[in-house]
């Protein structure tokens, strides 16, 4: 999954930020977003509000969200 995430990060650089969070060490942040499974993608808009959460490796859905976020900025 790492190469895919790196690819998306590069593709949407300047429009959408990508932050990698280690769920094991960032316990508090994982709790805040109620992370139960990995990998999980949490999408935040420009105000910091959670707009979507995707669990798993469905690349097409993840990229669709990237497109939506980049367009809304």
């Amino acid at each position, binding site marked *: *999954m*790492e190469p895919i*995430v790196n690819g*998306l990060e590069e593709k949407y650089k*300047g*429009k*959408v*930020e*990508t*932050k*990698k*969070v*280690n*769920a*094991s060490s960032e316990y508090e*942040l*994982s709790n*805040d*977003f109620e*992370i139960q499974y*990995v*990998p*999980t*993608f*949490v*999408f*935040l*808009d*420009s*105000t*910091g*509000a*959670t707009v979507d959460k995707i669990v798993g490796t469905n690349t097409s859905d993840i990229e669709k*969200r*990237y497109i939506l*976020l*980049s367009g*809304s*900025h």
Partner: protein
Amino acid sequence: MICPHCGKNTSDMVRECEWCGSPIEKEDNTSSENPYESNFLGDEIGIPPSDAAYPGRETRLPEKGEPRQADPFYTKPWPYAIAIAIVLLVFGGFFLLKGKEESKPGLLVDNLPTVLYFYTDS
């Protein structure tokens, strides 16, 4: 019973003689069906309920100056309005707080939309 006017036998359930038609005066007040009408029991039985079955006496109305009994609270609209307002406040507050908790602007960089990718080392 025997009619006092014509002396013939007539029913005791009627008020007039079946033979001569003269009115029959009843001596005994117990034949009256409505004790309130005949006042047989006097004032011992008190005021009858307001019911069509007791046409003799009407329900006593409050006298002038006497305070009228207030309507119970559940017949008025304000308790229901207060209850609805409380429910709306509780649910509205819940949704407002929920929206505030989900917003985390501290995680953003240059106010750009952000994707948090949660992973583990294992």
